[in-house]
């Protein structure tokens, strides 16, 4: 650690009560090779400017709170180190493709609606009863959906997605991967209900398979793959429901 060294953070600032438009503010922070970008933001807030506003909690890459644009790329700020950028300045901005609430805090309203829309819970016909013990699920059946269950809702994939920014109907990578996760779960019987949501308009078809969502995912989920698989299922279903006439024996 060399506390005499410093580096510069250029931070996006916007306050809805006082600012007409966003601006950037430069802060000089101590350079510590063990520090992540989040540590530098916290140091600024504690010691220099208490009005700087950002979200964080676990600082170990699992709560999903601290996603921001770091030099233009969507990152968890608890997982990128100052040393990866030193001595160049680091530009920190709120995640793109989301409305900004204040400074580095974006609105989750639309994202939460999309998560809820895909019915991300087990749907079954039978009555919920625990007396018969657990539902059996083989390791192979678990492997069918496990990686899609690893999403931490950090929303980096929405910031990376060229469609999510301008197509409101598009449910987006995380929500579609989550819907797919339940569709692939051997304990679930709710695929038809979910497809009712996913096959509407641009909900899933909006995806143009750029694949940036998978590239930026800090938890190695493959939303692009999930969307492609779900589209294939959806195409069959779409054909059954809307293209093939009833009783055509498809």
């Amino acid at each position, binding site marked *: 650690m060399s506390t005499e060294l410093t580096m510069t953070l250029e931070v996006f600032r916007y306050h809805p009560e006082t600012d007409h438009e966003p601006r950037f503010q430069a802060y000089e922070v101590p350079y510590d090779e063990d520090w992540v970008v989040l540590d530098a933001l916290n140091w600024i807030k504690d010691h220099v400017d208490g009005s700087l506003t950002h979200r964080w909690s676990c600082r*170990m*890459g699992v709560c999903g709170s601290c996603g921001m644009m770091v030099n233009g790329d969507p990152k968890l700020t608890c997982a990128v180190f100052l040393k990866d950028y030193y001595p160049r300045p680091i530009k920190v901005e709120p995640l793109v493709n989301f409305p900004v609430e204040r400074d580095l805090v974006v609105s989750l309203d639309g994202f939460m609606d999309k998560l809820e829309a895909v019915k991300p819970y087990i749907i079954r016909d039978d009555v919920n009863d625990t007396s018969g013990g657990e539902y059996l699920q083989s390791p192979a059946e678990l492997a069918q959906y496990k990686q899609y269950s690893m999403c931490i809702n950090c929303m980096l994939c929405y910031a990376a997605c060229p469609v999510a920014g301008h197509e409101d109907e598009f449910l987006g990578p995380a929500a579609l991967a989550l819907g797919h996760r339940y569709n692939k779960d051997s304990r679930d019987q709710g695929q038809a209900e979910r497809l009712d949501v996913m096959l509407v308009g641009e909900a899933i078809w909006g995806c143009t398979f750029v694949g940036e969502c998978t590239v930026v995912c800090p938890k190695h989920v493959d939303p692009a793959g999930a969307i492609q698989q779900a589209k294939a299922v959806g195409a069959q279903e779409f054909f059954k429901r809307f293209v093939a006439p009833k009783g055509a024996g498809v």
Partner: protein
Amino acid sequence: MAHGTTHEHDVIIIGGGGAGLRASIAIAEENPDFSVACVSKVYPMRSHTVTAEGGAAAKIKPNDSLEDHIYDTISGADWLADQDAVEYFVNEAPSEMIQLEHWGCPWSREPDGSVAVRPFGGMKIERTWFAADKTGFHMLHSLFQTTLKYGNIVRYDEHFATRLLIDGNGRCRGCAAIELRTGSVRAILGKAVIICTGGAGRVFPFTTNGSIKTGDGMAMAYRAGVALKDMEFIQYHPTGLPGTGILITEASRGEGGILVNKDGYRYLQDYELGEALDVSDPRHPQKRAMELGPRDRLSQCFIKEKWAGRTIETKDGHVVHLDLRHLGEAKIDKKIPFVRELSRNYAGIDPVYKPIPVRPVVHYVMGGIDVDSNSATSVPGLYAAGECACVSINGANRLGSNSLTELLVFGAQAGRHAARFAMDNPDYDVSELEAQAEDEGARIRRAWFDTSRRNGERIVTLRTELHDAMENGAGIYRNADSLQSACETVADLRARYRSVTLDDHTNSFNTELTAALELGSLIDVAEAMAHSAIERTESRGSHQRLDHTERNDDDFLAHSMAYHRPDGSPPRIEYKPVTITKWPPGARTYGAGSGLKGEDR
């Protein structure tokens, strides 16, 4: 703070982590006509349950028994747990865990499709369900996603509750909460309230706990006159990464990892924790022994090794090594992949090739809001569950993997009892509660938005002093002098707290204001911890006094009860007997054959 609108529901839950979400579902499912409010300072999936790694205990396998889970829990607690509560907990645990399985939690599986279990510290038989090493993450997300099924659960995300609202009949009827987006203070009213706000590890500087774990719910209850129970019992987890305090799960030892000192020696064998079997011995890792001893003992052994000069000095303090190399890459990647990811990212170590540096780290508060075996506090209509509550099943030391199960069992129980209270006590006066919430908004505005006060102390100054005082005074080993010093510093900080000033006097998303309010919670909780600790002149479980080194059942087989005094003077400490049913206090032994049978049983 602008006065916000009033919102009415049947039951109000403060906190959206594991316990709060389980309580929400319990009420929503059993009372479809009820409206349940879930008020949380963060979005539920950010709650700290998310970071739990190793697993959740419940008897499921035929080689295990409820009796063994009960005995492991009670002996692990150094007999400070209430045995009726432990029995209820252990009996309910299997169905709660199966319920979560039915709700989609992706538990790791055996080849036959049944859920897999692993051993944890202090356990006679392996009974820890796990989802690789992201158990808390999967439990939290499964619960949160399941809540989305219920139209009668209304979320107040990013609402910071600051005060409980108590009606003229002394019943708790809601909370005042700052809506972070607008800064307005809302009255969120209901017929009953459950606090599920988690622990308070942030009282200490070096903790596994995320920034949100500031004991707000504990402090709110304390200020409302509810006792904080057994607050002197703070769990240090033996294996945190130096520098960050990030947790390396006990599952790494459950899978066979070993702890060695600077000489490469498995030092735990010198501390009555059993024999160091070779890692290639099929009996390794031995349950209730060595690396699978209880957390309090392992953390204490570290300090003794440090005193003996056998730890390794680093720029982030002294460490020992957690060696996983003999497990091999395939097993590490299958069973504890997150351990590898965290070690690589935050310690620059790949545990496949190198041992991980670790040191004890504040992890869990055994104490909390005093509740009875129905999760009810002394204030009618007010309940608490999860880490913020103290039933107590954890006593003087919690067993690893009991806390996640506790969220489910007592979250559900608190939900059911609160719902019943709401049905039986439906009527309250809205205007008197609204007036309290308006008062609360005015109080916050006066305390923090007075722009004539400038250049007071910064939040970080007081927080750092609090951290130092608690680490130095109330750490793994304490004595009267160190605790007296901690008590004095906390009192000094309480006085200076009023003169802290903020840079930010605006309304929208004022996280400097919430940090100031959190600091207030930390001071309250630290006060209860330090004063409870100085009064307990014995050593038991995680509370180790260098000036009173023995357990003293004659005087202290009792829960401490810290009562807040509104005038700011030190809390009143009282004691309440521990409930002992079938397991009289015995010697707490670990090592070969311990807990199987013998004189302590």
